[in-house]
């Protein structure tokens, strides 16, 4: 509840800054339209925006799910196998360092212009932060717990399951929060590179037609979406972490 209110307050503040920029700098409306104009466009084009937003939401949801899943699995792999660690970590960094934009055109050539390429983009973009954060957590298990587990005759797998993973949950939480913010970008980049639907597509289309107001309406909806996702994930993670130790 408070979080929702905070989100709302933040939105108001953003609006105020935006309006302030308009007043102070009075940029041309084809570069930065006024909030009022964008609001009007948003309302008028609500059906259009809604239709495209649904597609993006769907892609983001799938991307978030699979990206988190793969990230968790990879982090666990890395944490359990020194061999995997040796080879995979630099590759991970490398793969991440190759800008998705650069790979996106090629990916779309392989995967087509359907939903798959966008989901893959979202997965790719959140994969690294999730993996990296969770892995860091898994490698920072307090030594005392590990000693204890060792004397108890635990297998590595069970130590992982009962001690290292629960101890790394706060770090995974940090990773998930990053993922909540990045997944929408991933999907939009995917749409940008090649699509016939989605908010990213709508943005490009509007931009190409010099309909800056419509573009900003789409940008705002995307931003609101990400913000909502972030607030939800943050609230969920915080509450879970608080609850589980009391």
């Amino acid at each position, binding site marked *: 509840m408070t979080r929702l209110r905070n989100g709302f307050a933040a939105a108001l503040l953003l609006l105020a800054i935006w309006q302030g920029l308009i007043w102070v700098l009075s*940029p*041309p*409306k*084809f*570069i930065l339209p006024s909030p009022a104009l964008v609001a009007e466009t948003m309302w008028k084009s609500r059906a259009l925006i809604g239709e495209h937003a649904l597609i993006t939401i769907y892609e983001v949801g799938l991307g978030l799910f699979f990206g988190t899943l793969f990230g968790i699995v990879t982090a666990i792999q890395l944490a359990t196998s020194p061999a995997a660690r040796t080879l995979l970590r630099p590759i991970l960094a490398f793969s991440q360092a190759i800008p998705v934009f650069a790979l996106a*055109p090629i990916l*779309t*050539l392989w995967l*087509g*212009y359907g939903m798959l390429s966008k989901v893959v983009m979202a997965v790719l973009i959140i994969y690294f932060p999730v993996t990296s954060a969770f892995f860091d957590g898994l490698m920072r298990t307090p030594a005392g717990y590990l000693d204890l587990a060792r004397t108890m005759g635990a297998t590595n797998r069970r130590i992982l399951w009962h001690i290292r993973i629960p101890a790394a949950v706060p770090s995974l939480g940090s990773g998930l929060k990053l993922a909540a913010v990045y997944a929408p970008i991933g999907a939009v980049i995917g*749409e*940008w*590179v*090649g*699509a*016939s639907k989605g908010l990213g*597509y709508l943005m*490009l*289309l*509007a*931009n*190409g*037609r*010099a*309909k*800056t107001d419509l573009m900003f309406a789409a940008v705002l909806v995307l931003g609101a979406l990400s913000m909502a996702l972030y607030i939800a994930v943050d609230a969920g993670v915080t509450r879970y972490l608080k609850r589980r130790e009391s």
Partner: protein
Amino acid sequence: ADKMTVLLDWFINPDHGPLIVAEELGYFAEQNLEVEIVAPADPADPPKLAAAGKAELAIGYQPQLHLQIHEGLPLKRVGTLVATPLNCLLVLNDSPIKSPGDLKGKKVGFSVAGVEEALLGAIMAPHGLTIDDIELVNVNWSLSPSLMSGQVDAVIGAFRNFELNQMEIEGVDGRCFYLEEEGLPSYDELIYVANPDLMDKDMIARFLAATEKATQYIINHPRKSWLIFRDTSPELNDELNAKAWVDTLPRFALRPAAVDAGRYARFETFLKDAGLVPSVNPVDMIVMDVTE
């Protein structure tokens, strides 16, 4: 010297020959100009930035200009770089699409959002098809790759002097439907646009004079001018540019400042009839002759 910034529509390529040659041969300097040439990532941006006064000139596309003016951008065409359409509907040579009428149910890729639907709709209309009969896919900059890899059946927005050569180099033959042969009014593919409220007419006139001189040089010395273009930067020296250079030469506007008012009036009417603009703007809202 007077400093001015020119925003290109895309990375430097043979379409920009007159600018490069003018720079290299010192024609801008002759006109007491110091020209900075900047390439953007998104071709939709330069007109906006020119309208905002961030550059004296931007290179744009005529069909887009009509829309941009209707969207309220303070822009006018002040010169012409390429005076014929370059855009074409591109398919693979062995494609079953033999006429725009065969597009029904196909995927068509495009890159620059804007008037593609209008252009496509116009060339399909004689065949009894509308834009709803095809699936439009934004393929961004992968026009020829998306076609060659079979992800789309055709692309609109390919440049006849460029994508065809590119596909040939990759060993895949392409086939063009020339829009102006499919019932579209002819238009200027690449134009210079500027903000009429901010511009320095004299400076633009001098700029156009320099490019006019460069264009004449290019026509007179096609081989030498290619060498000049190629040697300005190592990344320009490749097979594709060499081929495209030859195909682009005949299309440069020989009189960059000259206005063909009828061409712009016809296109504006065509857009109105296609339902893409709400009204018909008078020609003097769209173009101006800076030498007047």
